[in-house]
């Protein structure tokens, strides 16, 4: 006899929440020792909401289905020489950035959500963390499997884990995430679940995935959407956790406001890499960074989310005005930096094509023709004379975001911004008021930053010459790095697209 099915609500209550028990011979403070020292006060963990009402059986069922769909596409991609259908080999540079910059963060998130799945006091929060931990591992694995299809044919993808730990520009995402991992559990949730996964995630994933779709990268698009279907659950966790903390005790409000301020700026600076990817690395553009910023940050977050949070006494993040001002030029300043230092990166960079520059003139009418087109035209002319410009020497880095000090004063795109603070008799440099503010709150933490340039000068990176450092990075000089137009990727791409009656391997 078929029994009536339990409702979602009842299943969730019985299979997720009801499996918890009260400790009787250990104090709760001893069982969950990490949830008090940050000053966040939680009175009733039962008030935690999970709108997805996840249970282990439904979670496994849908995740398995997602994986089956994805691997069917990856097989088809590999068997059909899918990489040859890209718009251009230049597109693969955005995958090199993604694999070395983002995939290791997914793995770090997997580990840290595993820790939260043990250490949060409430069963609802623990189970949501457990699911996210498994999701993040799935993301890391599917990204590696997908992009390994490209590793067979293109440079720069072979040792992304090591590169993430060592290469100068990858210290930007790495130090961001390490900052979150080394914070307490509630700050981590605000940093990663709320700020990164809710506030900023669309600015990271949608450009990559829509960019993949538009540039003929079926495999990346599919893993992206597969991951992103989990991401909406992560967004929900981020929003729920912040509302939960705000509703539990009014004393939590100022602590959370500080974290929102800090983690908005930290995350936003990391997205400088995404901005330059969108505007420069995609041969076919989906939208400009400026448009994406207006849609996802200004419209959805500042006009949508923050009026909701105002109810709890939370105001929009500190320094968001500067981010709004910078939407006119951030991508150009970051890519100009990447172009000059591409000799030490696992990707190739090049001057944008004339048609791309025309697109930029339209997308950035107030800044591109005035400030950046002349730079690129100068770079192109040098390149045509056989004098491709690379910066000689190592740049000064911001102590917080670790991006070379190339950002300008807000609203003044010709004047490089420098902020400094003194601490224990030493001077520290920052690219912006936002980064300086973060340092001044917790200088003891940030004086410990692993700054790639300092480390090279201290002799901790294989040596003090460029070939020694590249070797230590795992970058093969002349294969993985430097100018795109003279790269093996470009040569191979042209060869593969020359009509030939004879088949054969790469």
């Amino acid at each position, binding site marked *: 006899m078929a029994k009536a099915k339990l409702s979602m609500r009842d299943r969730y209550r019985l299979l997720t929440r009801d499996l918890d028990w009260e400790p009787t011979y250990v104090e709760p403070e001893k069982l969950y020792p990490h949830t008090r020292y940050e000053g966040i006060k939680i009175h009733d963990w039962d008030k935690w909401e999970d709108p997805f009402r996840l249970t282990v059986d439904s979670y496994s069922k849908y995740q398995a289905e997602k994986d089956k769909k994805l691997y069917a596409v990856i097989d088809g991609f590999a068997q059909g020489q899918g990489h040859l259908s890209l718009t251009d080999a230049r597109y693969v540079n955005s995958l090199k950035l993604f694999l070395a910059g983002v995939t290791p963060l997914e793995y770090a998130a997997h580990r840290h959500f595993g820790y939260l799945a043990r250490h949060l006091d409430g069963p609802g929060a623990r189970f949501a963390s457990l699911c996210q931990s498994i999701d993040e591992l799935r993301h890391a694995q599917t990204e590696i499997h997908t992009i390994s299809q490209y590793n067979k044919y293109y440079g720069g993808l072979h040792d992304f884990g090591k590169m993430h730990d060592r290469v100068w520009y990858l210290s930007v995402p790495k130090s961001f995430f390490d900052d979150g991992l080394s914070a307490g559990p509630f700050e981590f949730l605000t940093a990663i679940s709320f700020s990164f996964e809710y506030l900023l995630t669309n600015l990271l994933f949608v450009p990559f995935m829509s960019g993949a779709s538009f540039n003929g990268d079926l495999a990346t698009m599919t893993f992206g959407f597969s991951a992103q279907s989990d991401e909406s659950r992560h967004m929900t966790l981020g929003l729920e956790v912040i509302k939960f903390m705000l509703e539990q005790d009014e004393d939590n409000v100022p602590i959370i406001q500080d974290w929102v301020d800090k983690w908005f700026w930290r995350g936003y600076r990391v997205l400088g890499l995404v901005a330059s990817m969108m505007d420069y690395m995609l041969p076919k553009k989906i939208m400009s960074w400026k448009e994406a910023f207006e849609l996802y940050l200004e419209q*959805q977050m500042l006009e949508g989310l923050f009026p909701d949070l105002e109810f709890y006494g939370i105001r929009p993040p500190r320094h968001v005005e500067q981010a709004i001002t910078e939407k006119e030029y951030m991508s150009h300043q970051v890519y100009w930096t990447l172009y000059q230092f591409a000799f030490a990166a696992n990707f190739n960079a090049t001057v944008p094509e004339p048609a791309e520059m025309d697109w930029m003139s339209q997308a950035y009418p107030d800044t591109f023709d005035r400030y950046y087109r002349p730079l690129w035209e100068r770079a192109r002319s040098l390149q045509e004379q056989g004098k491709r410009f690379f910066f000689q020497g190592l740049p000064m880095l911001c102590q917080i975001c670790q991006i070379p000090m190339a950002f300008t004063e807000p609203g003044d795109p010709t004047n490089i911004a420098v902020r400094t603070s003194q601490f224990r008799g030493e001077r520290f440099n920052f690219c912006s008021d936002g980064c300086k503010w973060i340092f001044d709150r917790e200088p003891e933490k940030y004086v410990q930053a692993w700054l790639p340039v300092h480390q090279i000068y201290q002799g901790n990176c294989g040596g003090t010459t460029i070939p020694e450092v590249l070797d230590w990075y795992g970058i093969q000089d002349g294969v993985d790095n430097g100018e795109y137009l003279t790269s093996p990727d470009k040569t191979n791409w042209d060869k593969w697209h020359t009509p030939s009656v004879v088949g054969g391997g790469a």
Partner: protein
Amino acid sequence: MTSEPRTRQVSVDLQDSEDTRALVEAIEEDNPDADLLRMPGLVRVQAPKEVVIRRETVEQRMGREWETHEFQMNIVSYSGHIADWDDDQIVIKWEH
């Protein structure tokens, strides 16, 4: 600030797929104010104040049984707050 508050939009981004076509039709039927925006690989449904996805309407459009959990297979992103997700409907709106 003294300006009139604008009507806040909520939205949901879905993968542009075979299943999504039926879903989008159902959402359009239940949310007459919704706008569609197509991006490469994506469909965004956007509406003032709230978006509701009803199981019955989706099942009619798909011609098969559909549980609301299955919405996880199609969703890419959203903007708003998931106010309700039970056996019969999913409601996305701003709370305050």
